[in-house]
């Protein structure tokens, strides 16, 4: 009797499972059908969903700007070869150190068929400075005092010369918006409720947050059509799933290759490095005991094994940093000899535990001390770096406790600029390839206050003067020279421990290639850099 019962229960269990197997067999055929459109369709995985498809409510990232750069157009674009190129503007010139004139092309239309007017362009540049809109791109436009139109020209007047300005029209903050559409739908613009209308080569077909963004070619685009008819950005947050999807050919590429798994990715895809000038390092509060003592700061720098961090954790996709800007930032602006000389003058304290102990012995904490580093829990790179530091600093008697925190509250600590910021792990990249940007954020005394980024609290009038001059210099070489000099002078005081410079790492289907591309050109139609074979 028991055997009869068993057989019946077994049949019942199988009945539950069999429909699932039959479902799966049918699904495979569906995949095959979809796969037939591969030549014209691009399936490009992203690790997180863009918050919105509207730059004022979103910060720059390869994911957000990569997608939005296909929908919106810019006056100028930044090419993969590091050159500025006209796009929606047919020409441009700086008529004075503070005046820029852009002539807008007449044949451009938005994807809904309405023409792109100079008023739309002017609106797109005025918009961010409206205090009632709270645009997150506002910091790019702080110097703009007026935006006027004259015929087909848009004239932008700055309060003072700005070394970064020439790059701003390529930035996602300067996407050209359709004024009437934005004004009518501001609260929901760029959400599934109100899909954006741009004049770029693609238009949004569907945006399902946390699932995918689907784009189709914009038939009204003024320029050369890009290589793919349709593009879909599926959101695949898990690194392993993304790798399996790449291996199985379900995706054609991704913006998100974890450095720790580079070898695995290299076996299934072509790896592409896009220069991005990403800086990671540790700031040290120079007013906080015991970090107010330079011997302590030097000791921590000596005890930081930057080369091992780079080799062990970033698999050759990063290099040990010696300051905020990497030397590549100065390419084409300063001579190689000048760059080499400048970087040679930086104070660099290579990993040496004996010298670290000697420095510590000269401080008032010769036997070491205990401290806490707050680590943003959403950044694997920050976690990896601080764990490595915890290990080597412990060897000189500095016991580090890592306090994992959500990114928002952790960054709020920096913005609050309380009395004891201690050591903070930072990661940042300049919004445009201007060597003055990061030094200003991290070394200028105006940023060593509430809502500023200078968490080492470096306050040096000489450095301020250099940075102010760098930001307002109209000659790019002069600006670069001043910025480099500011970093040299700051390095003597050890306000930060530079750890590494890294790039964006992308992957494309085996047999395809991608390039030239860099961190800035991602936001300007990155798909043009993909060469399917």
């Amino acid at each position, binding site marked *: *009797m*028991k055997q*009869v*019962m*068993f057989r019946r*229960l077994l049949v019942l*269990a199988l009945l*539950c*499972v069999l429909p*699932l197997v039959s*479902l*799966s067999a049918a*699904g*495979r055929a*569906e*995949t095959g059908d979809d796969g037939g459109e591969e030549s014209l369709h691009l399936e490009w995985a992203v690790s997180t*969903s863009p*918050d919105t498809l*509207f730059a004022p409510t979103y*910060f720059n990232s390869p994911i957000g700007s990569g997608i939005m750069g296909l929908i919106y157009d810019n006056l100028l674009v930044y090419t993969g070869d590091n050159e500025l190129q006209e796009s929606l503007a047919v020409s441009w010139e700086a008529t004075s150190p503070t005046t820029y004139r852009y002539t807008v092309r007449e044949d451009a239309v938005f994807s809904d068929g309405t023409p792109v007017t100079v008023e739309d362009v002017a609106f797109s540049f005025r918009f961010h400075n409206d205090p009632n809109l*709270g645009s997150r791109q*506002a*910091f790019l436009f*702080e110097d703009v005092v007026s935006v006027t139109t004259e015929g087909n020209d848009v004239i932008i007047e700055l309060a003072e010369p700005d070394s970064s300005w020439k790059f701003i029209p390529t930035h996602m903050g300067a996407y050209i918006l359709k004024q009437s559409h934005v004004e009518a739908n501001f*609260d*929901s613009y*760029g959400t*599934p*409720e109100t899909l954006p209308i741009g004049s770029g080569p693609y238009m949004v077909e569907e945006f399902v947050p*946390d*699932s*995918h963004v689907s784009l189709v070619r914009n038939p009204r685009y003024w320029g050369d059509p890009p290589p793919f008819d349709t593009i879909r950005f*599926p*959101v*695949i*947050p*898990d690194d*392993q*799933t993304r790798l*399996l*999807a790449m*291996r*199985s050919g*379900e995706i054609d590429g991704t913006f998100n290759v974890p450095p720790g798994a580079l070898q695995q990715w290299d076996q299934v895809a072509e790896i592409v490095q896009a220069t991005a000038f990403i800086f990671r390092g540790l700031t040290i509060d120079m007013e906080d005991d015991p970090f107010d003592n330079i011997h302590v700061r030097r000791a921590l720098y000596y005890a930081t094994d930057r080369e091992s961090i780079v080799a062990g954790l970033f698999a050759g996709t990063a290099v040990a940093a010696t300051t905020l800007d990497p030397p590549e930032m100065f390419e084409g602006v300063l001579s190689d000899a000048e760059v080499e000389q400048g970087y040679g003058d930086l104070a660099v304290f290579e990993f040496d535990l004996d010298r670290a102990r000697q420095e510590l012995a000269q401080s008032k904490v010769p036997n070491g001390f205990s401290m806490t580093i707050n680590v943003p*829990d959403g950044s694997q790179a920050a976690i990896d770096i601080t764990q490595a530091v915890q290990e080597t600093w412990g060897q000189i008697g500095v016991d580090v406790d890592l306090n994992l925190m*959500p*990114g*928002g*509250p*952790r*960054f*709020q*600590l920096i*913005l*609050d600029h309380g009395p004891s910021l201690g050591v903070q792990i930072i*990661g940042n990249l300049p*919004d445009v390839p201007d060597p003055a940007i990061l030094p200003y954020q991290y070394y200028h005394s105006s940023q060593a206050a*509430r*809502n500023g*980024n200078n968490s080492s609290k470096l306050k040096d009038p000489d450095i301020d003067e250099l940075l102010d001059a760098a930001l307002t210099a109209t000659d790019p070489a002069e600006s670069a020279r001043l910025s480099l000099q500011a970093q040299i002078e700051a390095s003597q005081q050890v306000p930060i421990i530079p750890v590494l410079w890294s790039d964006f790492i992308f992957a494309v289907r085996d047999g395809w290639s991608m390039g030239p591309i860099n961190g800035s050109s991602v936001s300007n139609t990155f798909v043009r850099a993909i060469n399917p074979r």
Partner: protein
Amino acid sequence: MVPIVLFMTLAVFLLSSLVPGGAVAALLEGRPTSSAQIEFLTAKYGLDRPLHEQYLSWLTGMFRGDLGRSFRTSQLVTDMVGERLGITIWLNVMGLVLAVAIGVPLGVVAALNRGSRLDRFVVGVSIFGSSSPAFFVAIFFLWLFAQNLGWFPLYGAGGPALWSRLWHLTLPGIVMAVAPMGLIMKVTRASMLDEIDQDYVAFSRARGLRERRVILGYGLRNALIPILTAAGLIFVGLLTGTVFVERVFGLPGLGNMLVQAVITSDLPVIQGLTLIIGTWIVVANLIVDIMYAVVDPRITYDKTK
């Protein structure tokens, strides 16, 4: 039920508000900013108002069906929840149904074959299932059934068509079921072992009743109370597992949304999800209580007693 859910929303609101820093800092992501911008965003989201005003404002909106807009995505929270709720319910219900549909029969079989190889096999499977880490099961199933066998897609929730949804959500549903299935098997086996040793089972057999009726009609029915309790707890606990399964399978469900909301201190979304999850838990417990009475008529909820 309503007071419990409201209390939960109040408690979560206060806890979220006590976290230093918060939404505006999370939105800024470490980028250059100005005090004016921070003040603007703080005022825009009402974060400069006293806590009780903020909560009452949310509460008033809730009763009007307006849960506000997400700080991060600018979307209406009701839309965000509406888009994702179906997927999460599907995963959880499927996980529970599979766990019960497979776990209960196997638990019964193991109990009826106590000490046999089959029993040891089922016990082994239940231990393996209930102790396998979700990330291992998810990745292994993905590798085996999606990549190598190609039976299921690797990621995504599919299109709106039922067929597409079934195809995409079946494997995640199975992964959701693995650990609870092990637990259900164990509970069913233990409960059935208790029951089949009872005198009433021996008497039933002595009366010449069919074995099927003895086991299913009497033994299993009496064993159902602890199974129901376990199933209720599992249904609530599955929500936690959803977070991981949604992440691995790239599914836009409530789990992923909750993680993002907490990371970015997105208060309207946290509050909206607390409301949904609180209701979910209360309803699940209510259903279990009703099922107790259905399974065992001796259990009543008479207010006069």
